[in-house]
């Protein structure tokens, strides 16, 4: 256990190792550590931002959904209204058409009746005149009694 040159040798080795460490070991590794720290911080930031974005998107999606639901409901309601309207219109048209057909039929019937009445009337007049002629055994002045006969016919 003597103090000898080893003390200087050890000091030199120590100095060399420290300088080597200072130049080639410490800076790159601590640099990488700092960089990783930054990266992690950025990553956390990004994650937080993404979380916020996601929340916003979700809120937006919910709002969109509600809106579209409302729209859909409105459209359905409108369609229903329109359908009932159409039905009503169709009903109305049908009613009007029916009315029209009924009226036309009635008019025709009335016409037929009138025509029949006319025919009957004229035939009754002729019968009456013929009867009268037969009764009176003489001719009746058709012109002179036409008025009378017409009056009779109108009373029928």
């Amino acid at each position: 256990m003597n103090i000898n040159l080893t003390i200087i040798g050890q000091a030199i080795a120590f100095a060399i190792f420290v300088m080597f460490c200072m130049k080639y070991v410490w800076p790159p590794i601590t640099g990488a550590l700092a960089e990783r720290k930054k990266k992690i911080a950025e990553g956390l930031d990004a994650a937080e931002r993404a979380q916020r974005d996601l929340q916003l998107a979700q809120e937006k999606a919910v709002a969109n959904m509600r809106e579209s639901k409302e729209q859909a409901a409105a459209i359905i309601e409108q369609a229903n209204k329109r359908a009932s309207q159409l039905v009503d219109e169709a009903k109305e048209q049908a009613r009007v058409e029916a009315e029209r057909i009924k009226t036309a039929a009635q008019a025709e019937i009335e016409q037929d009746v009138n025509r029949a009445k006319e025919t009957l009337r004229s035939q009754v007049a002729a019968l009456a005149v013929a009867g009268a002629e037969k009764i009176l055994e003489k001719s009746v002045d058709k012109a002179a009694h036409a008025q009378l006969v017409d009056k009779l016919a109108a009373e029928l």
Partner: protein
Amino acid sequence: MASGTVTSSEYISHHLTNLTFGNHPENGLGFAHTAVEAAEMGFWAINVDTMLWSIGLGVLFTWLFSKVAKSVTAGVPGNTQNFVETLIEFVEENVNSIFHHKNALIAPLALTIFVWIFLMNTMDLVPVDWIPYIAGQMGIHFMKVVPTTDINATMGMALSVFGLILYYSIKMKGIGGFLGELAFQPLGKWMLPFNLFLEIVGLLAKPISLALRLFGNMYAGEMIFILIALLPFWIQWVLSVPWAIFHILVITLQAFIFMVLTIVYMAMAHEEH
């Protein structure tokens, strides 16, 4: 035990002698054959085993760490990088909590001290006879594998730290400020000789305590391993296993203490008192 023919004291002193290379006054240039010869070589001799193991372990440390530093990525780290990063963060945390100035040297210095001393101390856990036996088979008579059980190694590092203390004290405070601190504290200028004595003792105590604390702990630990190795081989584990487990704590703690004290001394050198 090496062999049945050596006595216990021979065995112990053999294990505590460095492989010293130097110029012996009588035998000339060569390796010392005994501890006495090594002592006779004086200052101009070198402990080859201490230098080899400490430089080898230092190279292992720098190789491993620079390998990681070369391929370092800010992305997902591999196993080795993870391990290295853990160490670096541990050291950085300690430096940042103690040292509050801007100095690019301190953190790498602390890292080197911690890892290198830890590796050198760890050699203590290699069973005491293995490497000396192999070396003996190769014709090398002495082989002390734990560099930190050599006072030269610990003192060499402590003196380097001491040099840095002086350098930064003078650089930060100026030569006047530094000397003023030595002369006018703690009791004011009327007690100058007393102050000077107190402060210089305090200053010199720093490297000496650094070196002796590490050396003493590791030397004592090694000594106990050697004593345990004197027991019959079938009973050794009863003591060596608990001691080795306890020693894991000691080697880490001593490396940590050397590192923290170095940082503290550097911080003191940078601060005005």
